[in-house]
């Protein structure tokens, strides 16, 4: 009422001014792009395709089931299924995408493609510095641009990648255990079939 509110306000602003030279609390600007804040883990921008191992083409997990293409709301994924098959990471013959394009100018980062993928092949990236001056295709990412390694996935989403790896290892262990059991049963059956057929062959040959 006597103007002391104004004086208190002036004191606060002066404290801000001088404090900004000494403490980081009073100068919270991050000078991008020289300084950056580490993004939190749940950050998501646009999708990318995960590949295991060193060869991006051979190790890609995507089997061109086209579920993500059908579920994508703005329909920004374009997949062409291949005619032949090639072995995947565990050696099983699978189809592969001959063309896998995502138009990131259309993509709305809803993560539905990630949620529906049964093979953990497509995940969300955190890269946002994607501007280009090529208006006619610069924002249409093809298979090569979308392929990023599993190590990169671990780098950007560590907990998620660890969980995915554990789940995939689990599944692989279960498949292998099943295969081993089946192989053992088949070997036992083959051994049982082999020994009675061997004995009469030997007696016939012995005369």
């Amino acid at each position, binding site marked *: *009422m*006597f103007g002391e509110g104004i004086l208190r*306000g002036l004191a606060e*602003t002066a404290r801000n001014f001088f404090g*900004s030279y000494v403490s980081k609390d009073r100068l919270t*600007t991050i000078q991008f792009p020289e300084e950056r804040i580490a993004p939190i883990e749940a950050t998501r921008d646009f999708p990318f395709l995960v590949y295991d191992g060193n060869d991006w083409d051979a190790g890609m997990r995507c089997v061109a089931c086209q579920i993500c293409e059908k579920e994508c709301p703005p329909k920004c994924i374009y997949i062409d299924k291949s005619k032949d098959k090639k072995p995947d990471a565990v050696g099983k013959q699978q189809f592969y995408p001959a063309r896998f394009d995502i138009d990131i100018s259309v993509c709305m980062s809803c993560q539905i493609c990630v949620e529906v993928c049964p093979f953990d092949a497509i995940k969300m990236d955190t890269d946002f510095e994607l501007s280009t001056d090529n208006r006619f295709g610069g924002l249409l990412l093809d298979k090569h641009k979308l392929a990023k390694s599993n190590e990169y996935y671990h780098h950007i989403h560590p907990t998620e990648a660890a969980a995915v790896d554990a789940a995939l290892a689990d599944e692989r262990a279960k498949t292998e255990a099943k295969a081993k059991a089946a192989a053992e049963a088949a070997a036992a059956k083959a051994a049982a079939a082999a020994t009675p057929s061997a004995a009469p062959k030997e007696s016939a040959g012995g005369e």
Partner: protein
Amino acid sequence: MIVLSPSNIERIDQIFVLTKHWLMGYVPAVAQPLTSAILSVLPVLIAFPAIFAVTTLLERKGLGRIQNRYGPNRTGPWGVLQPMADGVKSLTKEDIVPATADRWVHFFAPVVMVIAAFLAYSVLPIGRNMVVVNLSSGVLFFFAIGALVEVAIFMAGWSSRSKYSLLGAMRAIAQMVSYETPLVLAGLVAVMATGSLSTVSIVEAQAQYSHYLPNWFVFTPWGFAGFVLFMIAATAESNRSPFDLPEGESEIIAGYFIEYSGFKFALFFLAEYLGMFATSGIAITLFLGGWSAPFSFLTWVPSYLWFFLKLLAITCGFIWIRGTLPRLRMDQLMHFAWKFMLPMTLLNIFAAAAWKFFPVGILRWLGCAVFLAVAFVLLTRGLKKRGDVSVRQYRFAD
């Protein structure tokens, strides 16, 4: 190595005057009046736009630090080349004139405003013997020139033929007219104490020293009150925060210069800041002792340096206030001017008159201070709105 002998000090203090006399020696007698006028005016035309450039940078960096951010720091180290970048931008932008605008009035409005702003500097004593023209009614000249600015604002606002600009111009003129009375009355006390309207004699009356302290008017109770009231009215006259409703960007886009772009906008900006410097300059002249040093043992520093240091201090004060206070609404502005500032300045005149009639000593200091303090308290308490919350009655709606 310059030895600080008295004659050398005198020479450094009067260096601009001596340079002018030396140059005049080379000019033939027939061209002497014109050359003298040009040589007197040229330093003002060069110095104050340079100060304007520095102030824009200072303001942006200062406001930035107050608001917990950096100011401009990409153009040159610490952003020192930012004014140059701003200048290049405003010169190269396209000059758009609305098709229905009044072409000639639209063109002359920024010209008139800049002319009025520059004219005000002709009575400011920047240093000892350094005033462009020593009018015997210099203070009156300054306030008369302030009236020209309002005509320029009206020309700008009306000629753009836009609702926003006309509204902004009306508000700006209403605000400037309302605060002109407290401005003149607040400055009047210094004239009363000196007995002369000439700015040079007002500064010389304050350049005396008693013990180590100077006789600045700001150290007297009526002078301090007058200085505070004068600075508030000066903030309103230059349309600066918290009185920048006519041109606040979030209120009315840009008010009366909304339809101006490019160099004309830069001219308005320049005129507004020049007006701010001129009003600060007259406040320095009337209350802060002009070019005199604050202590008698510091008189060896050149006089113009003291003037510019005081100008810098007042400019920093303006920036500080801008970063602190929110904008006043139009009706709050008007109430403040007519209900608080005007009675306060009138009572200040009483106090200044009483000062002259009391004998010199601590008694008159206490008497005037108590009188002003009591008046301030009574006025603020009387004007404080009671906290009644009833159904609001409208006079024109319904």
